[in-house]
Structures are given as C-alpha cells and as structure tokens.
C-alpha cells in the first residue's frame, strides 16, 4: 500500500471571477501534524473543502495514498480514511453526545439497509460492538458524563470535543481539523493540544487550520502559509516565524490585533 501521504498539486478553485485557491501545492507526510495558516479569507477552508469533496477544484490534483480523490464525493473520501471537523460546529444538536459519536461509526458498521427493517443476530452484535466503540471515544475525549445529553445544550468547548470524538469514531488515517481552537479559552486550548498529540500518537495524521498562532507554533511539525489562495511560505514553525513575507502578510497584523 502506498504511504499515507496527502499530496496537493496545483489545486485551483474559482468561484465565478474570484480565485479562492490559486495553484496551491503541498504535501502532508504520514504521522505529521500539519498546519495551514493565513489571514481571514485566505482560502484555508476552501482548501479543506476541496480535499474532503465538498468542492471540486477546477484544476490540479489531490492525491491520497497515491489515489486521485479530486472529484470524489465526501462519503467516498471518508471511506478512504479522511475525516474532517468544521469551523462552525456541525453537530446533530437535538441528539445526544453518544448518538452524535455513533454517527461516526456509520461506515464501520457492517449493517445493511435491510437491517433497518429486520434485525438479525449479526446486526445486533454489530450494533453492540459499535456502541462499545462509542464508549471508547467517550472515554478518550472525557465525555462519558455527557453521553445522554443533547449536544445543543452543551458549552461550546465541549461541543468541539464531541465533534472531534465523532470524527475519531470513524477511525480515520487523516484527521482534518478546521480551526479546532476557535472559541476555546486558554485552558481548553491547552487540553486540545494534548488531545491532538494523543491522536497523533495513535498513528493518525493531522491536518489543521488555525488562527491561534501560539497554538499552531506549538502543535505543528510543518506549516504552509497561504494568502489570497496562494502559498506564500512553508516550513517548520521556527522557519515560518522568521520568514519576512509571513510576518508582513499575517503575523504582524494578527499580533497587533490580539495582544
């Protein structure tokens, strides 16, 4: 099997006259925590949407384990081990935490559609086995006490954790996090860092977009900086911090705003 590499080559996505992603190339290696940063409106989320099949880029190629995934549907891409979270949390808010995480077990479940009509001993075993996997995620993300609580009534920070638990329930090879620290306080952000490291230690490659620069510098192994859809720099966090083009485009203004 080809290695767990995600390679974007010359990906371009246009909306009418606007080029949201312009000739972007980067490579995520197996086991990395890879960051994509850039100012607001730089096209970061659009890149994620192109990878996960929500958009189809007009040009370029998105290769995962040597296979072209550009043009596949979101569920086909999930089936290949790439799972994402959303910047604006998208949970099934009326449903409980456990049911939300159970949705991540959908593609792992062996049940056919007919088991929705008639259960069999095999389908009952499968059902139980998947709920047990949900229990693992509840424990991993320290959510056990909220198992039966509707997600809509939970604080923002916990909802973020539920969304990550749901994604991890799919047992992904590549986890894509869209601004996982958005809306979190410092304590929650620290917990998130630990969680991301723990996820990586399980052998999952992590690709993330983040605004919180301190967090990005601390958590990522490698970074790509984009602005106006174009790559302006890439390198390790140390290299990026020294790069004048990045400071010009992003770091300077961001620091002025925040601190």
């Amino acid at each position, binding site marked *: 099997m080809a290695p767990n590499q995600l390679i974007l080559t010359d990906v371009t996505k246009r909306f009418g006259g606007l080029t949201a992603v312009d000739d972007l190339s980067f490579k995520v290696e197996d086991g990395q925590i890879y960051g994509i940063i850039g100012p607001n409106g730089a096209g970061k989320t659009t890149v994620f949407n192109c990878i996960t099949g*929500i958009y189809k880029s007009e040009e370029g190629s998105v290769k995962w384990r040597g296979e072209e995934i550009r043009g596949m549907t979101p*569920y086909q891409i*999930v089936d290949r081990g790439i799972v994402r979270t959303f910047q604006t949390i*998208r949970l099934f808010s*009326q449903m*409980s935490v456990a049911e939300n995480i159970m949705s991540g077990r959908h*593609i792992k479940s062996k*049940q056919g559609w007919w088991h929705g009509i008639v*259960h069999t001993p095999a389908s009952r075993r499968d059902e139980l086995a998947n709920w047990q996997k949900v229990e693992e995620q509840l424990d991993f993300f320290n959510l056990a006490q909220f*198992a039966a609580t509707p997600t809509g009534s939970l604080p923002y920070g916990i909802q973020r954790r539920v969304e990550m638990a749901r994604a991890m329930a799919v047992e992904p090879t590549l986890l894509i996090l869209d601004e996982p620290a958005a809306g979190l306080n410092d304590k929650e952000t620290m917990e998130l860092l630990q969680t991301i490291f723990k996820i990586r230690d399980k052998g999952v490659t992590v690709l993330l977009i983040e605004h919180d620069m301190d967090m990005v510098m601390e958590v990522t192994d490698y970074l790509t900086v984009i602005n106006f859809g174009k790559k302006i720099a890439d390198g390790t966090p140390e290299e990026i911090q020294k790069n004048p083009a990045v400071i010009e485009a992003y770091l300077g203004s961001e620091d002025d705003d925040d601190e």
Partner: protein
Amino acid sequence: MKKLQRFAYPAFLLVMAILPNLLDSRWQAVAITFLIFSVVALSQDIILGKSGMFNMGQALFFGLGAYTTAILNAKFGWPMLATVPLAILIPALFGILLAGPIVHLRGDYLLVTTIGFNIVFVQAVQNDLGGVTGGPNGIFGLDPMNIFGIQLANQLAVYYFAFAVLLATLWIMRNLEKSKAGRALHYLRLDQLAAESIGINTRVFKIFAFGLGAGIAGLAGTVYATQYAAVSPEAFDFIQSVLFFSIVIVGGSSIPGVFLGVFIMFVLPEIFREFATWRFFIFGFAMIAAMILRPRGIWPATFGKIPKFLIKESNHGA
C-alpha cells in the same frame, strides 16, 4: 417519562386489541380507518419525519398498494392474500424509481414534484389506464381476504387484520430506530453536510426511506381494499396526501405523535359528527396553533435512547 412509555404502549395496544368488541359496526369501521391511516401516517413519518423529505404524495403509494390488490384480485383472480407481496413490492419499487431522480431536490421543490406524481397517478387510474383500473368508479366486489383458512368475512376480522398490520409496522419502526439505516435518516435530516462528511451516502438512504415508506403504505392499501372490498380514485387524491403530511407535521415525528394526529384528523370528526364539515376548519387552526406553539409537532421525536452501559452519571441524563 420513560416509565410512562413502558406502560403506556402495552396499555394502548391492549385497549386497541379489546376495543372492537365494544363497538357497533359504524364505530368498528372508524376504528379500522384509524388503524389503516395510522400505518400510512407512520410510513409517511419515515420519509417526512425521520428523513425530512417534504413528500406530499404518500396517498400515491397507499393507492398503488390498494389498486395492486384490487386489480390482481378482480381482473386476474388472485386470492387476496396472494396479492400482499406485490402490493408491498410494487409501491416500494415505484418509491425507489420516483425518488431516484428527485431526492437531491430541496424541500419545496421535492414537495411540488411529489404532488405532481400524485396527480398523475389519480389521473391515470381515473382514465382507466390499461383498461384494468375501472376508471372513475374504481374496482368493486373484491373477494374477502382469506388468511390460511380464516375468512375475514366480518368487520371484526378485518379489524384484527388491520391491527396485525399496524403491529408489524410498529415493529419495523422500532427496528429502524435501533439500526444504522434509521440513525442515518436522522443524521441526514438534521445536517446533510455533516452526515456526508462522516461518510453517509445520503442519496442511498433517502431512496431507502422512500422505498420503505412506500412499501408500508402499499400494505396499508391492501388493508383498505379488504375493508371496503373496493377501491376508487378519490380515496388516494392529493388532498389525502396533504392530510398524511399534516398529521406528521402537527402530531410530531414520533409514534404517539402520529397516533395523536390520526386521532384528531379522523376520529374526532366522527365523534363530533355534526361538526364533520368543520373538521378541516378545526384542523387548519390546530395546524396553525401547533406550528406556532410547538414547531416540532405536538409530540416530537425524542433522542438519547442509548445503551444503558454508556450512561455513567444519571444526573446528566437528558
């Protein structure tokens, strides 16, 4: 609440099992209608309530089942019981074929399309399509249902046949809730993009919902044909679809909600017969009031039915 449900369901079913023996023939007919329409409304709940697809053509599948039974019995001499498999499969197949090209449509567009299907169906049977539908008069003089030697010759027997169909439907609904397919419907209704992003092929499960809902409605159609020993086009008109749609919206996407909706719509008008002509007026206001006061229906779907071993601290229970 959970305790209430544990006792309420057996108690309700027990009452329904005894009920027809206490009723005269007119009320037995009302009770059978309640059972049949409950089954159709439950099938509509799979499509509309669980999957969130604005299907305004459920009477089409109901009618397709009834006509399948009627045509096979009256024109081809099949025993009534033998028509049951086809009366489920043909509507289910139509459900799948009709849903295929339309399930990607957004709510309002899907709604208009399904109205169109319903109208086409009624026009087709009224105009005696293929010379077997009996035109505007429909088909009458069907044989009584004969279930392995038991002749459903009187209303009481038909009632228990309808009751058995309702129980089977409730059993399927329960199985659906505790399955991957059933949960997928909830997920795709609540957030389609999120559902696809965790790997659900929403198109397949939407078509599944249509097929299953249509098959169950078709079976209800057979019961309907058995009750009246006849079928006619106006019973499956678009306005019937509106009623089934409204029952699920007003009652709520839950089994008690559907029963409540059917009771309000079909049984209350019989109880207050002198107000029968007012029933759309009253139901219209009930719809308006329910949607303002309880936008998810009088008795909405409840979630959080998860295995006990997952509930660690009861104080957080929903």
